[in-house]
């Protein structure tokens, strides 16, 4: 079964394909969309683009950040950010 989940909901060791990064089709002048743009842009610049495979390797306790592998490199990403990334997972 294929599920669409937030990246933060993946178990350690699980992989998924990114479907979207929490940024809508931003309106041009709208300020919130702007912030969303920056947020999404940063993640995408780090390689988290739609269609990319991402693996959760480890997570820090107390709702700490996740350690993920994406495009051959290892990133630490805050949980708040991970909650806004949606992935498709086979379970």
């Amino acid at each position: 079964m294929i599920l669409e989940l937030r990246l933060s909901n993946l178990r350690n060791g699980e992989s998924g394909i990114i479907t979207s990064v929490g940024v809508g089709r931003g309106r041009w002048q709208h300020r919130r969309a702007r912030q969303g743009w920056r947020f999404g842009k940063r993640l995408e610049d780090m390689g988290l683009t739609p269609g990319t495979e991402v693996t959760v390797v480890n997570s820090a306790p107390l709702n700490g950040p996740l350690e993920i592998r994406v495009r051959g490199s290892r990133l630490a990403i805050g949980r708040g950010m991970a909650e806004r990334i949606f992935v498709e997972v086979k379970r």
Partner: protein
Amino acid sequence: MTKNRFTIALAGNANVGKSVIFNQLTGLHQHIGNWPGKTVEKAEGTLHFKGYSVDIIDLPGIYSLSTFSLEELISREYIAVEKPDLVINVVDASLFERNLFFTLQLLELETPMIMALNQMDVAKRKGIKIDHEELEKRFGILVIPTVAVSGSGIYELLEKAIEVIEKGGKRPFQVKYGEEVEERIEALSEIVKKAHYPYPARWTAIKLLEKDEQVEREIHRINPEILSATEKFAREIEDIHGYACSSVITSERYDVSRRIAREVREITPPIKPPMSERIHALTTHKICGYPIMAVSMLSIFYLIFTFGDFTSGLLGDTLFRLKPVFEDVFGTGVVGKLAWGGIMEGIIGGVTVALPYILPFYFILYFLEDSGYLSRIAFLMDSIMHKIGLHGKAFIPVMLGFGCNVPGCLGCRIMETTRERLLAAFVVTLVPCSATTVIILGLVGAFVSIQWALALYLINLLIIFLLGRLAFKALPGEPTALIMEMHDYRAPHLKTVLKQTWFRLVEFITMAFPLIIVGSLVIKTIEILNLLEPLADIISPVTVTWLGLPAIAGIALIFGVLRKELTLIMLATLFEPTNLAHAMTPVQMIVFTLVAMLYIPCVATIAALVKEFGWKKALFIAVFEILLALLLGGIAFRLLSI
């Protein structure tokens, strides 16, 4: 070509060995400063080669050329507007795909460039083989394999760089995107070409489609019609792909990187996981990671402060022995007093407080950063630091602040955005440093009770917690959550770490010492002119009426600006021969300590703040903290006197 002075810029991701290459190239001819008007560090160096003088600029380590951080903006502005003769793109061969993503963006800036394919040794250990000649053909640029830490390939890199410049630096190829995107980029560049924008037309077109804030703003000023054309193209792309145009461009760029990476690279993964992987797993483990971190942090703390105390004492003793010499030269009159008490004691203060702690601190900071452990600590501490509005990376500066606020403030530059840096530095200045701890223990702990001393310490921590959150909410700009690369562990390149330490130290001295000496001179002058007591009277409405302290305590507080532990020393001297216990009531002692704890960062800390953030912000923090200390002191006095 008659020109014999060139500029070469080093550009690349963070942690690819850029600063090692920079240090290998420039040796001891370096200058560390800030980019004009910015709080981002600029490292420059000069070298002489085959009759040319070459200026090397080490651009900040970044992942993209968008507008996420000041570093990115500075880098792209520098390359496009200042136009260095050549850009050397330093690439980590072991993390090829991510690095190429940045290379593609550099290519779009249409600057003459060559590539240093670095960390070839690490790549080899990971079983990665890269056909660099094939890569040269793809991009139309020279690719030189290097191992910066051993110096291999560096000479060739420089030789080729000069050759390329001599030949006039040909432009690299442009890498094509998918057809439907490419068509629109080309159409848009045609329109942009007429706008006379300092950046290349194709680059501008791509940035517009990415909805780059700065480019949009500037293009809007030149010709708003270009933006409506952009919007039309962006919508078309969005309709084809089904998601935001900026995401499409980034995805495409990564797809191209991946495609090229696959074509020129061969991977045969090693069977045994390397040692660095096992250390990584251990140091980020949710149980084992914390004790390991606690032990390393405590040893670092211990190391810095034993080294600091020892050297500080040694330096202080040695310098104070010069006093008779000074008195011989300048006499014991006003001039002599100013020369010794003003200038020399200022220098001694600077030398004994700043140097012995800052030197080992910088060394350890760069060591931790370079080895990769810093990012693991940030990973482990992120959720806790979030409670005070910071994120994991701020743990190190805040922790060091408990020893001395100065290195704490300087360490805030490891944060990514200016907002984060300022927030972290603000929190650091509130942290009780070792001198503050001396006041708390030496006054309240010794004369009131140890419980009260502890209570004051806790109150201080509570204030940090509350103000940290408040500042986090109040400061303009967007909060940025943690996102960072955790590169593989590696042995730091000692020579680079030592040089980084040395040049930062020199930079700090040139910045802070004049300020420390001036501060010391001013206070000494006031003392010599017998103005201390009139001054104490002037501020007595605050010290006596509002805070309920003896008037003379105001003098001690003024001296504390130089070094906080001076407040305690001054208090003891001023009340001589009476015992402190009789001169001040317990309530006065508690209020005094509370004020001394918070009231102002010492002059060296202010100097560090000025250096990192400029005068305005430094003064704002100082004034804010004085007001806060007075407010809380007054409230405490009234509460405790009930």
